[in-house]
């Protein structure tokens, strides 16, 4: 066998191993089918391997061994996905995933596994297929109004899968947190619908893999921001398709990595409708021997004229051993579009640091001020000021801890 054939066989064998825990029972027939289809997808594509192009900068091995892979075992009896404080806001129906999959719930049926499957079109995302095949916790959420209060999902199960439908002209602020090792969020936005997603990932001790799959109809808007602070290994994939015309997707991320953390943000935006606007702004602050990775792709189909795509990934390296790897990609088949990308990596701006110190600002405070300013371009993507302030406070606390 050739090397490639051997590697492929190993990936399939590992996939079979990942699927060795049985699929949950007692679900509706449609759910069982979706589970089986996801298992078949995973079986065919195989587990992620070190030689996969899509895993060029991040070794997936810890993710195929840990709780991200075998979430069902021993973990879920003590922890679960739950709602944060307070009831769900008005105009928001929330059902635990298990209930949704046992019922004949129209929107859940249309979304569960379907958006994930669509998101596999260009690139294999095996850990997402695994999640669809095996996750038992999570929520099915349907939004029919535009409440001001946010919905807070806490993913403390090892594997969590949530489906969200925001109906026509409705809107939701969704906060996600928790220690889940493998999460999958499928988001279906009807015409004029808006989802504002803010996610906090802080200090996970186990490796974490997350996926967001979003489908946007006409005028739909997705704003998603993730703060990732430290942790062992975090891989966040966001896959969004702007199907309708005049849709908008703004994705932001702030990465604070120290110690031996690896934090990887991988984004794939597909423009299908006319006049789509997408924006990616990712800021990475990397210390010690930590690693930050950004892979961002803007894929513009031939019919997606007047697309406006923008991508920015930047890193400040605070130590000599820190690294940042960026892979910006544009693949454009339409001829009337404006797409741009930029990526920079550098040390702390010594000129600015001296200027601040020459005005009496102590070194540590000056560094914190510069880091906050650097990260803020991404944090500013959060429209809810209280949430943005909460994120800023976490950035400040992270810098303060660094000085201890």
């Amino acid at each position: 066998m050739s090397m490639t054939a051997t590697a492929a066989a190993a990936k399939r064998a590992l996939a079979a191993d990942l699927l060795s825990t049985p699929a949950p029972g007692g679900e509706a027939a449609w759910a069982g089918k979706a589970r089986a289809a996801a298992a078949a997808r995973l079986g065919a594509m195989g587990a992620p391997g070190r030689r996969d192009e899509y895993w060029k900068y991040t070794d997936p091995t810890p993710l195929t061994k840990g709780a991200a892979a075998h979430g069902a075992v021993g973990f879920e009896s003590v922890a679960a996905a739950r709602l944060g404080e307070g009831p769900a806001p008005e105009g928001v129906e929330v059902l635990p995933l298990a209930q949704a999959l046992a019922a004949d719930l129209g929107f859940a049926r249309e979304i569960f596994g379907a958006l994930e499957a669509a998101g596999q079109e260009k690139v294999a995302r095996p850990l997402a297929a695994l999640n669809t095949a095996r996750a038992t916790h999570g929520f099915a959420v349907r939004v029919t109004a535009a409440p001001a209060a946010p919905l807070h999902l806490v993913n403390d199960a090892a594997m969590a899968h949530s489906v969200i439908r925001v109906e026509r002209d409705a809107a939701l602020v969704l906060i996600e947190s928790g220690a889940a090792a493998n999460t999958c969020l499928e988001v279906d936005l009807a015409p004029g619908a808006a989802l504002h997603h803010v996610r906090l990932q802080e200090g996970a001790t186990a490796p974490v893999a997350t996926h967001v799959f979003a489908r946007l109809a006409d005028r739909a808007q997705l704003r998603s921001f993730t703060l990732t602070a430290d942790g062992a290994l975090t891989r966040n994939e966001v896959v969004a398709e702007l199907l309708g015309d005049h849709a908008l997707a703004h994705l932001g991320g702030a990465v604070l990595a120290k110690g031996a953390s690896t934090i990887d943000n991988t984004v794939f935006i597909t423009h299908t409708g006319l006049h789509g606007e997408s924006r990616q702004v990712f800021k990475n602050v990397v210390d010690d021997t930590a690693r930050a990775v950004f892979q961002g792709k803007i894929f513009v189909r031939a019919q997606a004229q007047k697309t406006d795509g923008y991508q920015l990934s930047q890193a400040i390296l605070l130590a000599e051993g820190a690294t940042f790897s960026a892979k910006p990609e544009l693949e454009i088949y339409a001829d009337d579009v404006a797409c741009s990308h930029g990526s920079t990596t550098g040390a702390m701006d010594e000129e600015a640091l001296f200027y601040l110190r020459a005005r009496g600002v102590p070194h540590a405070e000056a560094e914190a001020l510069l880091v906050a300013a650097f990260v803020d371009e991404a944090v500013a993507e959060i429209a809810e000021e209280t949430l943005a302030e909460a994120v800023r406070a976490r950035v400040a606390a992270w810098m303060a801890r660094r000085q201890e």
Partner: protein
Amino acid sequence: MLKIADLHVKLADEDTEILKGLSLEVPAGEVHAIMGPNGSGKSTLSYVLAGREGYEVTAGSASMNGHDLLALEAEARAAEGLFLAFQYPVEIPGVGNMIFLRTALNAQRKHRGEPEINAADFLRLVRTEAAKLKIDAEMLKRPVNVGFSGGEKKRNEILQMAILQPRFCILDETDSGLDVDAMKLVASGVNALRSPERGFLVITHYQRLLDHIQPDVVHILHDGRIIETGGPDLALKVETEGYEGIIGAAA
């Protein structure tokens, strides 16, 4: 007030000596000008006094009010009352001018064991001083020096000086990039701060700034040393004879 004795300085990663035994004393209440041709060591002197990294003092001393400046971090020098108006003020994207001013002022007050200034007093102070320098509210809201013209940057330096009320001010080529009107504005800002307790060191290549900020003493710096010291007339001599005549006479 400021006392520099036999100061020798080289770049940290090169052997070339830039300051070669510079001695200078500025008593409180006086304005001293340092003039010199390009490459004489003017900017190195200002940076070494302010505590910028990348320079190595190989001999000599520099003190302010008896404090050994060279033993202090840059921020401690500032808190002790040393202020450098930069020749090239640095742009800091993302940090608003007001936040910057308040952070700096409060850091210095904290260092001196004083309480933080309250928000209302701070606003009043900044508005008053900014108005004198014709700095509008919009400029104060923008990130530090980002998108400022050359003149706006220099006025912003003087604003910082007015807010921080330092005991000793070094102006490094503050006239560079200024038109006559801007220079008058900057000079009147500096003149307003002149007091019997405060000293100034005005570093400049040209005499014209000294028409507006009248010095008590003028020093000529050449090749890392003060080669001549005199009254305001010395600046006029530079203007008429150029540096070469003075350097030739001193050699």
